[in-house]
């Protein structure tokens, strides 16, 4: 699993053998491919970019070109053991709707997103007065696909509001996992967060 991004590798580690998995925003299917060969999962994907879908299908994966903001509603309740939304929540039209759908079609969900409250972001905004352009969010405000920036704290509040259970969570900075310091500290220290959720 060494070729995967750290957040994807963490998700992959925590997916049970042989699970039915839906990867929402699966890109070229790198995670699906790892899961299929490493854990014999039944993996499906949704991806909006046709070039990425073509790559995924060319590697023999079941990937549908579509818009998760709309197409996730097609799937029946509980169709998957695990639904994955990696680095896509902040691009959704309605992240709250997407989260509901994720936990409807999957018994558990893994959600990863970039943390806007990372200390470098806060520092950059405070000192520069401009939208931060940093290592983990490198695109300027006018070109970014991220239309709903959020922080780890924002996400936790949404989960509480929706009565979603946090099964586990992991935090990353500089490409490796950070540990200790508790939730509040993570909101300062983490570039990326991964949550395992259930309803």
């Amino acid at each position, binding site marked *: 699993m060494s070729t995967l991004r750290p957040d994807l590798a963490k998700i992959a580690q925590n997916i049970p053998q042989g699970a039915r998995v839906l990867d929402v925003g699966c890109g070229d299917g790198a995670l699906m491919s790892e899961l299929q060969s490493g854990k014999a999962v*039944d993996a*499906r994907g949704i991806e909006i970019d*046709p070039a990425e*879908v*073509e790559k*995924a*299908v*060319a*590697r*023999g*994966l*079941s*990937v*549908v*070109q*579509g818009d998760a903001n709309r*197409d996730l509603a*097609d*799937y*029946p309740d509980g*169709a*998957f053991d695990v639904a994955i939304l990696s680095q896509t929540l902040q691009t959704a039209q309605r992240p709250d709707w997407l989260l509901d759908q994720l936990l409807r079609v999957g018994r558990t969900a893994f959600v990863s997103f970039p943390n806007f409250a990372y200390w470098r972001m806060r520092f950059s905004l405070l000192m520069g007065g401009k939208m931060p352009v940093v290592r983990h969010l490198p695109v300027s405000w006018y070109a970014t696909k991220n239309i709903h920036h959020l922080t780890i704290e924002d996400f936790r509040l949404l989960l509480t509001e929706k009565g979603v259970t946090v099964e586990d969570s992991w935090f990353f900075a500089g490409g490796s996992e950070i540990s200790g310091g508790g939730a509040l500290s993570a909101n300062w220290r983490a570039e990326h967060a991964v949550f395992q959720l259930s309803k």
Partner: protein
Amino acid sequence: MIDSAHRLAQVDFAFIMASQTAISVRKEALPDPLPLDSGRELAGVEIAFETYGELNAARDNAILVFHALTGDQFVASEHPITGKPGWWERMIGPGKPIDTNRYQVICANVLGSCMGSTGPASPGQDGAPYAKDFPVITIRDMVRAQMRLLDVLGIETLHAVVGGSMGGMQALSCAANFPERTGRVLAIATTARHSAQNIAFHEVGRQAIMADPNWQGGAYYGGDTPDKGLSVARMAAHITYLSEAGLTEKFGRRLQDRDAKSFGFDADFQVESYLRHQGISFTDRFDANSYLYITRAMDYFDLAEEHGGRLADAFRPKSADASETRFCLVSFDTDWLYTTADMREIVHALNSVAAPVSFVELSAPFGHDSFLLDVPALDRVVKGFIG
């Protein structure tokens, strides 16, 4: 069943009415009468077919390729009438995306067609051609006939079924009606139901054929064939296979072999000359009555209607332990005959029963015909899906 599979398929002579040439094609007779969706039965059905590559010992590496409206079984070998290469040679062959070193590809001429399978030009009970006494058939009837052919060949399950356009309809119908025989379904540039617009274009073609004085109510065999009508039908249909941008790029408003307009009704424009050529050359290899029957079958196609009005029910697993059929659907952005929206409806239905499905809309300039032409992305998708 095994006995018949091991004996050499009978080689027979099919009299191709449209071309008035006798050619030899490989075919099998179906042992029992074929039940049809119309309620009628058709006895003495013969299905002409070609195979490419070897069947393995387990007899489970066969891929059935379904042809489109005016296609035939010569998918990867020279056409015996036109001398042209097979219609999908870019896709099928040794080392090609559908690799005949690994799979045996079978392609059968559909029921109702005119390249050796039983159709309106075939002799009926009284020995004379059926003509308009040939029963109206459906896409499902075509598939049923091909499943019977597989029985004769001793093939229970298929690694995959593959088809574009009407071939895609057959592939979907096969998955819905014979899921236990269908491992994978690759359906390209197709639809689960003919739209009003699709039917309308076909009706123009049929009316052109039936307006030809030579059509004679279908009983033209042995006399002059309704080539004018069939040619116009082909011209109208051919427009629907191309994109506007493709036509503009290929022909624009350029004139044909002249420097100025003739102020008459000759083929002044290159596009007119091209269409006329398409129409006339088509009559050399196709029977007008077959065109009527096959377009009718396409117009009748509505996979949801066959399954209680819900498309999803067509793909719902028949039992909990039924092995899953995998689907791959491909549309083209310039195809306005069977659009991406049409194919998304199929994807939605498959998603709603959580079927394993891939779908991609590929970008290609050639309109509906893109599935037959040079689209490297399609090659990669097909290779990846077939495995």
